[in-house]
């Protein structure tokens, strides 16, 4: 059929089964927005900033497992979106982001709202396109969805000049994709898998090291089975929280800079690391030369470039985690769970020696208490997003995650301002769950305009602000490594968060005691509108334990033991 470029965008989204998109209109993308107005198949959620549109699409994608879609205009619309693209790229989130561009005849003339968008997005997307002819659009959009969601997922950016969206051309979405140069390797080498199973059977202290790739590959339940069958303990990265349930006996919590003592010690003592979809990030490994020093390394990943990038793998397997884990399950008979009894005990002892804990207080609210409390009250019934900083680490440490895709946070890029818009996307994807965003008094201001989106769209995200009047994580580093010189981290001057929320039509609570917190949370859930719960927490609480940047995992700063009051 002969239709305009703008209509093609709509038709392609419909053909891809897209139900919700996020975006912000502007001059160069108006033809597309005109077609959005005319259609009724999918829902468009207007965010109040382009960055938020991308984060919302990320949250939507992470919660649903589908490709997130965002539409923005040229120039500043696009540059505002760059942080979101970079965030999605770092955390391997499948997105298709469509931006308007000035007409072809104006490209290169420094036209109004012109920027070399694909030049900018090249280094923070999996792939990008400048579409110079409407006839190319069906193929490009189909490719964009395929590339975003296959292999190691990631954001794909499609830049479309305004005149191309007006051009009429043939639209046929049934075209077969012919991507000779892009063929992700999804099936692990069976002989190599056999060797891995032998290596595991021969190991005395093997350890699963689970990463975000397990979630991307929808392999969490297969991994749960593999862990159970083999009796091998597992540590999770920040991105993998929820792969194993919090009450799984074999889960040794999170490892890394703010991982548990037991997880980091297990990693330091293991003789065989079995990495599944994890990328040996510096926040995980600490000092590389000391990381799992005496261990063999099995590394399963869909991205060959992740394997042996930082830690060289003795057993590299390129493949989709789900495929490989299913294959491992079939061969798991060679592994005898009893063999690791002593090893499990050793780890248990580590955990008893220095459990993940904090010193609760009867008078002041400890931030960790808030997270534990929400966990107790809501548990599985909530999806948890976070912003970036101390509250983020406490959420990862103390929330009782019970399923994959329950925890949505900015891991790789560490984007403050991610949490609220992401939670809006999460709520749009799974309205049946309560959407909680743990945030800080620093982070929440970085996208607080999204109150308007949440009110308008009736997406009742509950933002729990762990308010310590500090840029807490930076303050913690200043305390520990900068001799308490609190350079620009004191946030004592801040808005009235209750009024701020109310000004947009949301609801706000100011909380100073545990009782007040319970009441506020209950009320916010009942009222079912977007909420800010401003919780005054202990100002100088540190995230512990901690591996100082560049230190070895086995050399942690630990929670100070306190005498019982």
């Amino acid at each position, binding site marked *: 059929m002969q239709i305009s470029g703008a209509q093609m965008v709509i038709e392609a989204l419909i053909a891809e089964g897209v139900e919700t998109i996020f975006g912000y209109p502007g001059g160069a993308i108006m033809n597309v927005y005109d077609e959005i107005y005319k259609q009724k198949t999918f829902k468009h959620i207007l965010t109040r900033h382009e960055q938020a549109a991308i984060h919302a699409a990320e949250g939507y994608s992470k919660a649903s497992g589908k490709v997130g879609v965002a539409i923005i205009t040229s120039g500043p619309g696009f540059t505002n979106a760059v942080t979101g693209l970079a965030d999605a790229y770092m955390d391997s989130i499948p997105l298709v982001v469509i931006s308007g561009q000035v007409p072809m005849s104006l490209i290169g003339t420094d036209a109004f709202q012109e920027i070399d968008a*694909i030049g900018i997005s*090249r280094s923070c997307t*999996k*792939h990008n396109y400048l579409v110079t002819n409407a006839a190319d659009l069906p193929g490009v959009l189909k490719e964009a969805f395929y590339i975003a969601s296959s292999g190691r997922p990631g954001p794909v950016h499609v830049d479309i000049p305004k005149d191309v969206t007006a051009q009429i051309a043939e639209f046929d979405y049934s075209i077969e994709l012919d991507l000779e*140069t892009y063929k992700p390797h999804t099936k692990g080498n069976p002989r190599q898998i056999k060797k891995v199973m032998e290596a595991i059977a021969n190991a005395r202290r093997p350890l699963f090291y689970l990463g975000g790739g397990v979630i991307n590959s929808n392999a969490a339940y297969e991994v749960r089975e593999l862990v159970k069958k083999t009796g091998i303990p597992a540590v999770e990265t920040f991105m993998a929280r929820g792969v194993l349930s919090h009450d799984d006996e074999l889960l040794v919590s999170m490892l890394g800079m703010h991982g548990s003592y037991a997880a980091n010690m297990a990693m330091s003592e293991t003789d065989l690391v079995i990495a599944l979809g994890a990328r040996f990030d510096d926040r995980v490994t600490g000092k590389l030369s000391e990381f799992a020093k005496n261990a063999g390394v099995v590394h399963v990943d869909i991205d*060959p*470039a992740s394997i*042996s990038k930082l830690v060289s793998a003795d057993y590299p397997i390129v493949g989709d985690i789900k495929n490989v884990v299913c294959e491992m399950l079939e061969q798991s008979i060679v592994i005898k769970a009893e063999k690791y009894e002593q090893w499990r005990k050793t780890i248990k002892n580590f955990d008893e020696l220095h459990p993940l804990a904090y010193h609760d207080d009867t008078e002041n609210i400890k931030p960790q208490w808030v997270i534990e409390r929400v966990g107790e009250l809501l548990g599985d019934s909530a999806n948890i997003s976070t912003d970036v900083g101390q509250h983020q680490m406490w959420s990862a440490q103390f929330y009782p995650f019970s399923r994959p895709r329950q925890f949505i946070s900015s891991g790789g890029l560490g984007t403050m301002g991610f949490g609220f818009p992401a939670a809006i996307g999460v709520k749009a994807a799974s309205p049946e769950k309560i959407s909680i965003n743990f945030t800080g008094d620093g982070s929440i201001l970085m996208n607080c305009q999204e109150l308007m989106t949440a009110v308008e769209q009736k997406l009742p995200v509950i933002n729990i602000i762990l308010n310590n009047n500090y840029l807490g994580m930076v303050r913690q580093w200043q305390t520990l490594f900068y001799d308490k010189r609190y350079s620009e981290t004191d946030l004592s001057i801040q808005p009235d968060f209750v009024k701020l929320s109310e000004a947009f039509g949301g609801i706000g609570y100011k909380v100073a005691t545990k009782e007040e917190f319970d009441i506020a949370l209950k009320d916010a859930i009942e009222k079912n509108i977007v909420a800010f719960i401003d919780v005054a927490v202990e100002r100088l609480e540190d995230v512990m334990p901690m591996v100082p940047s560049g230190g070895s995992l086995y050399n942690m700063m630990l929670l100070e033991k306190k005498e019982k009051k």
Partner: protein
Amino acid sequence: MQDENARRVISVIVVNEASVLSRITDLFSGRGYNITSLTVAPIPNSKYSRLTIVTSGSVRVIEQITKQLHKLIPVLKVYEHADLVEKEMALIKFPVTENITDISTLCAAYNGKIVNASENIIIVMVADEPKRVENFLNLIQRYNPKEIVRSGSVALER
């Protein structure tokens, strides 16, 4: 372990499309890899181009470079050459007042010849292994070359 910063030659076959060269060079600059030389031209009768990149780095760095190149969507193949035939061309401009016979003899020894002569200058070309081109360029310094241009390497696996 081989020399930490050994010279390596990598050939990359890419779809000949807009901005594909930027993807490659952005990858090198973004990840802090070196490019010593880079040549690119379309492969006849195909939709592909071939790049020859001379770079340097440890075995691990080169492995990362080839993997990262592979990851780019328009990249079809990446060859990290071990046993290769490698050639480079250079053009050199001399004042006509220099000893043309000497220059001409030297050129001949390096697969070259005089390719242009005018009132004031002569231009010679040589085509040889990069190492030998390097030698040649050192040798001819005494004849006051006015301008030198090197093509960068092209290579084929044996």
